[in-house]
């Protein structure tokens, strides 16, 4: 958690007073860009900055040319960079290694020598923002002419690590307004958001400590405690992630820049579709706009719609982490969403009856949604086999 480091406290103590006290746009821009560069370099290191810088320069240049071919090539380069840094080990060791077990160790050993120990910091966010930018430029949106404005969009420090995934059409006007004028109201609202995020993080970190301790002993818990474990796990994910988003939004606001909301009370959703409109909104709308709709969305019949949804959610899961369980979690949500959107048509009168019941008793729909999401968190956090066993244990029995 980069915002909870003392280095960051010192960083913020230097950056904000400079930004607030000099009401000159050019100086503010210089302060903001320097802060972004320092923040990114400190946490990513030179090896993490270089690939992002190369991709950013290519993206900026492609945007300027507005050439569909060049933009497509750079989109491909961004995606390949993401695959190379984040997924090579998984694809070769887990996928190819699953085919020939003896390759697994040798591939793992070779890759360990060839690849950096960790992918460049937040490469997933960078790539998604660059792809969005180029795709929209290809569709006719204006490109960003100023390299400084593009730089600020690309490495805006509050949103580097955990989003929200920015849309440049929204970001640029907000950012220009922030450079022009940041008022006490912005700072106060930002501070409150940061404080809310901090409180969420404190609770989430306590839950993390508890879950880390009890996770390996899940089998030994009694059934009620296992359900309590699921409740804590779900709460922890929400508070951790939305807390981080709150802080990012708050810190941006303290620059006078309004970022889009990323969470809107997702655990109050009454169905999965609504849940995904409230959970990590910037990511789910990105996937909708740049994967689901280009695949055909809901326009090509129910089967294709279901397959498109599954593909989009598989990608969503895989984006969260290069592992089988993240992929499975994405597919699990895709299946849930498909069921949610088709059960009425597929089950005929029974489906209609169910839908009427859910409308009459929204608490039931809400509880089922929460249950589905909560159980899905097991898949997200634990290897698939173990998470399936944990799901079984929720119904009773012992682990042995």
């Amino acid at each position, binding site marked *: 958690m980069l915002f909870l480091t*003392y280095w960051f406290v*010192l960083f913020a103590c230097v950056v904000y007073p400079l930004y607030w006290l000099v009401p000159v746009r050019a100086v503010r821009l210089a302060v903001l860009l320097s802060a972004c560069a320092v923040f990114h370099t400190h946490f990513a290191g030179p090896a993490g900055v270089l690939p992002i810088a190369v991709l950013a320069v290519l993206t900026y240049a492609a945007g300027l040319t507005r050439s569909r071919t060049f933009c497509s090539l750079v989109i491909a380069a961004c995606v390949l960079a993401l695959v190379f840094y984040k997924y090579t080990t998984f694809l070769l060791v887990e996928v190819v290694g699953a085919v020939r077990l003896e390759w697994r160790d040798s591939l793992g050993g070779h890759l360990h020598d060839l690849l950096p120990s960790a992918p460049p910091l937040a490469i997933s966010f960078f790539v998604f923002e660059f792809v969005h930018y180029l795709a929209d430029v290809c569709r006719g949106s204006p490109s960003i002419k100023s390299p400084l404005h593009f730089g600020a969009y690309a490495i805006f420090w509050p949103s580097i690590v955990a989003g929200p995934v920015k849309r440049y059409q929204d970001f640029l*006007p907000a950012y220009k307004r922030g450079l022009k004028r940041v008022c006490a109201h912005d700072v106060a*609202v930002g501070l409150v958001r940061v404080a809310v995020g901090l409180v969420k993080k*404190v609770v989430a970190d306590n839950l993390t400590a508890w879950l880390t301790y009890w996770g390996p002993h899940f089998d030994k818990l009694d059934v009620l405690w296992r359900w309590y474990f699921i409740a804590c796990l779900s709460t922890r994910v929400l508070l951790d992630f939305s807390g981080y988003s709150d802080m990012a939004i708050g810190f941006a606001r303290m620059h006078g820049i309004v970022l889009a909301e990323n969470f809107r009370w997702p655990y109050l959703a009454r169905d999965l579709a609504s849940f995904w409109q409230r959970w990590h909104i910037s990511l789910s709308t990105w996937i909708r706009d740049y994967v689901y709709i280009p695949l055909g969305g809901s326009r090509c019949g129910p089967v294709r719609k279901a397959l498109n949804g599954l593909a989009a959610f598989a990608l969503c899961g895989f984006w969260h982490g290069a592992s089988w369980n993240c992929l499975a979690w994405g597919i699990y949500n895709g299946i849930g969403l498909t069921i949610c959107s088709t059960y009425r048509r597929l089950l005929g009168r029974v489906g209609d009856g169910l839908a009427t019941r859910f409308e009459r008793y929204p608490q039931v729909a809400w509880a089922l949604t929460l249950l589905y999401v909560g159980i899905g968190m097991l898949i997200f956090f634990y290897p698939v086999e173990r998470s399936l066993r944990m799901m079984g244990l929720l119904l009773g029995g012992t682990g042995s």
Partner: protein
Amino acid sequence: MNESHRPGLLERSLAPWPLLLGVVTAFLACCLAGRVLGRRNCFDRFDRFHYLMDYITLYYPTTSQVQSLARETFDPAKVAVIVGGNSIMYGGGSDPEHMFTRYLQAELGDEYRVLNLAMPGEMPFEFGATAAEFLVRDYPKLILVTNTWIGPGTDAGDPDGRPELRYFFEEARARGLLMDCPEREARLRELEQQRQKDPSALELKAQLRVDGPLYFRDLWNVFTYQHLTTVWCNPLAGSWWRPRRDYPDPDKLAPPVDEATQRSLCGTYLPQLRAQIEGNRPYVRPAPGQALPPCPLERSVKACLPGPLRERTLVLVNRCCPYFLEQLTPQERGLYGETVLATVQALERAGVNALDPGRSLSTRHYGDVVHLTAEGGRRMAEEAAPKVREMARRLGYVAQGRAGPGRK
């Protein structure tokens, strides 16, 4: 502003200037509260930092808290005795009534005031020694008693200690409480080079640089001790939120180790003991024609303790339970004895006082392989007290010929 942005209720109703003023005032008030509260002793009937109020349960006593504890315990007119070191000095396996420091206080009498700053796992010159270094300014009549394992070939740790307790040294350093010590500075520079890529080391430095003038950890420690714990940790499990003052000292009086346990421990402990003896052989009996190599223990003591503190320091060299020594061959036992002697000599060469209190201890004085029973703690105090009194006389803390009332 973002076109789609619709201010929420909080945002609409927020009055920015009163809020910002409130934030600044509250922040300054918290800093001031931390500073003021850190200067008051918050610990009720302090005996020692047991594990429910030390780093094991994520409670990190600050330098200010130790200073205020010292103010309540010590009297500038009397000799201040700080006990540092590991669980043996802490009194592991004894309740507060029967811990080593109680017996030492009883032995030394009223002219001395003993404060137990030992912690399980503490290195010889960590927490307690750091505290002694900054407390010696206010209490010049100060003696540090700490302990170490046998072995001139084993160093006494880094000057800033292990990661768990390094914060204390760094905090004292950031607040300018430590003495000048060129040997230590040189070693710290080496360590800094080695840790350049360790984010946790850099983070600790930044933390203490921020906390130094702001005292937020002092505030939080007092709050946690008196009102509410905010961090879950497993040892506190079901009652983790309770204030730390609610927890009594958890150590209970352990009986002497029985023979069946001793036998069961032999399998794991004897190979370690033999390895320890063999590892120290080059520093005790070098191969024919070879000189004694430079002694890591001597070097590390010089790098850990500044000169003025060395002469005020007594290091007890703790032996293991005699039962295990009896399982060794006579040659191994002989080498062990020589190793103990070499350890004492290495410490004395480094400029500290050293004592081997284990000669008078028998198997019934041990609760396990190394920890002492209440009776063992009493015997060790009987051995250490005359040495402490002798140091006090030599350092001019008490008049020559006055041994203090002590134990007759």
